[in-house]
């Protein structure tokens, strides 16, 4: 009390009340709003991220204590012939899946955007697969791919005298067959996003272009596509990440030999799953997740780079 009287004689004696100024009270609110979330992100996101990096440098079977082995998991991974084929498979899903699904969804969105009659109905047909459960629909597609007379597709083909295709039992065709299922499942989302992007282009641009006498093709090339670039880049990245992380379809369509036949459909995430939860090599699996993280990071950074170039 003496201190208050000496140091600040001009202040009124009820100063302790003013300690809770508007500003301080607000800060208290702010940090009480953020307390649980900050704890959550720390414990459930950042700590596990650090742990994954640390585990990738250890050898651990869950039984004994993890032992530090440096970069051995990584050298082992890059020498692992299985990783070579898994890496190829993962990029096969990406390199075929992304362009095909983007081209299809753009064409459909572009056409659908101009249709007035039955618009909602048509849109619903394309969007429906997106809200289905991947593991359920994987089994429907698996049934479609069975040999005749069970499989719908082979039955249909044989109606035209086309010989049977082994689809999921063929090392050549299994991966594309699974990829078709994944494209089918994601197409509705991409169409909706493309349509939102198309709607966001101001109508005045099109009117001006028509007054200038540009044809449909020229409008598409000079106005629609350039203005749609942010949407396209977003979808390229979104769909690439989706294909790089493909799991549900592969797991459910190849349950009798996960990732088979002969590992020909196995993507990186399935390899991670098996390494960690079938053979319990936690350190080795962690190193694989770090590789996946690096690949996804590069894809995301490419997006930023492409968008920056435009500005």
């Amino acid at each position, binding site marked *: 009390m003496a201190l208050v009287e000496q140091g600040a004689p001009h202040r009124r004696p009820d100063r302790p009340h003013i300690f809770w100024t508007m500003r301080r009270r*607000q800060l208290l*609110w*702010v940090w009480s*709003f*953020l307390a*649980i*979330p900050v704890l*959550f*992100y720390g414990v*459930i*996101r*950042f700590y*596990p*991220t650090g742990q*994954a990096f640390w*585990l990738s440098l250890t050898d651990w079977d869950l039984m004994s204590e993890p032992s530090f082995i440096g970069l051995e998991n990584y050298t082992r991974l890059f020498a692992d012939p299985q990783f070579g084929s898994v890496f190829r498979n993962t990029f096969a899903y990406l390199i075929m899946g992304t362009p095909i699904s983007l081209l299809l969804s753009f064409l*459909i969105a572009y*056409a659908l955007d*101009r*249709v007035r009659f039955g618009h909602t109905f*048509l*849109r*619903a*047909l*394309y969007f*429906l697969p997106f*809200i*289905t*459960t*991947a*593991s*359920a*629909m994987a*089994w*429907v597609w698996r*049934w*479609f791919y069975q040999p005749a*007379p*069970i499989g719908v597709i082979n039955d249909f083909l044989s109606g035209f005298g086309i010989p049977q295709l082994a689809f999921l039992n063929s090392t050549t065709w299994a991966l594309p067959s699974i990829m078709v299922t994944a494209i089918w499942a994601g197409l509705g*989302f991409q169409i*909706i*996003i493309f349509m*939102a*992007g198309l709607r*966001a282009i101001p109508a005045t641009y099109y009117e001006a272009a028509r007054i200038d006498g540009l044809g449909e093709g020229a409008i598409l090339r000079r106005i629609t596509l350039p203005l749609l670039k942010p949407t396209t880049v*977003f979808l390229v990245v979104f769909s690439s990440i989706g294909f790089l992380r493909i799991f*549900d379809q592969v*797991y459910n369509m190849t349950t009798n030999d996960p990732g088979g036949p002969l590992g020909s459909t196995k993507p990186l*995430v399935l390899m991670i*799953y098996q390494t*960690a*939860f079938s053979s319990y090599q*936690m350190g080795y*699996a*962690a190193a694989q*997740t*770090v590789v*996946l*993280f690096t690949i*996804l990071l590069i894809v995301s950074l490419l997006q930023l780079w492409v968008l920056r170039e435009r500005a």
Partner: protein
Amino acid sequence: MTTALAMPRINPGRILIWTLLFLGGVIMVTPLIFMFSTSLKTAGQVYDLRMIPAAPTLDNYVRVLSDGRFLRWFFNSTFIALTVTLSNVFFDSLVGYTLAKFRFRGRYFVFLAILSTLMIPTEMLVIPWYLMSAEFGWLNSYWGIMFPGMMTAFGTFLMKQFFETVPDDFLEAARIDGLNEFTIWWRVAMPLVTPALSALAIFTFLGNWTAFFWPLIVTTSQDLYTLPIGLSSFAVEQAIQWEMIMTGAALATLPTLAVFLLLQRYIVRGVMLAGLKG
């Protein structure tokens, strides 16, 4: 004269495009149609690939539902997806609001930290999450399935963007009226961003309802399976009894299908909103 004016709209090109779009749409829903029609067939009729079953029967549904497992999985999925959705709607918007509407030291840091978690794939976290769950006894529990998704950076970022469009004057007026900050957020700001909230709710619910990877890892007892995991194990059990597998798949698909048909407008708008802002 009116027909002459209307004529240019219905030209052959448009009819062709409409027909192609319609055929494409039919191809898109063919798997769903076959799934439902096969679920209404007996084992003997499965190879008869008619779209409309000769003698539709609900026997398969009775058989699949009779042992109660599907009902249990249905309940698990609904409970988990609802709880996670409520948690996200609450916390993501609370954090989004705080980051959008308050100026304080550390704001930018918190924002960047949360945003940076978007870069971390789930697959990298599942091993540590699994170890954490084993340590705390969360394996085979609802909490174990739910905890990783209780908040998301995507939802926080989405809500922050929407709260930034809420005028400060509204909040200031409420402050002068003597409302506390929590009430201002809940009663004044939240009602102004309902489109974003419904978009967030739809995305979170769908994502958790169909989630496969983490529930597959964290559950080992059938009682705690979610619908996708339960269906997957059920299908493996049934081997080649396709009519039973299709019935299971139909049961897993029907709830979201029904919700979609009821709320199509909101769902499509929500996906557009989330996709464009996110």
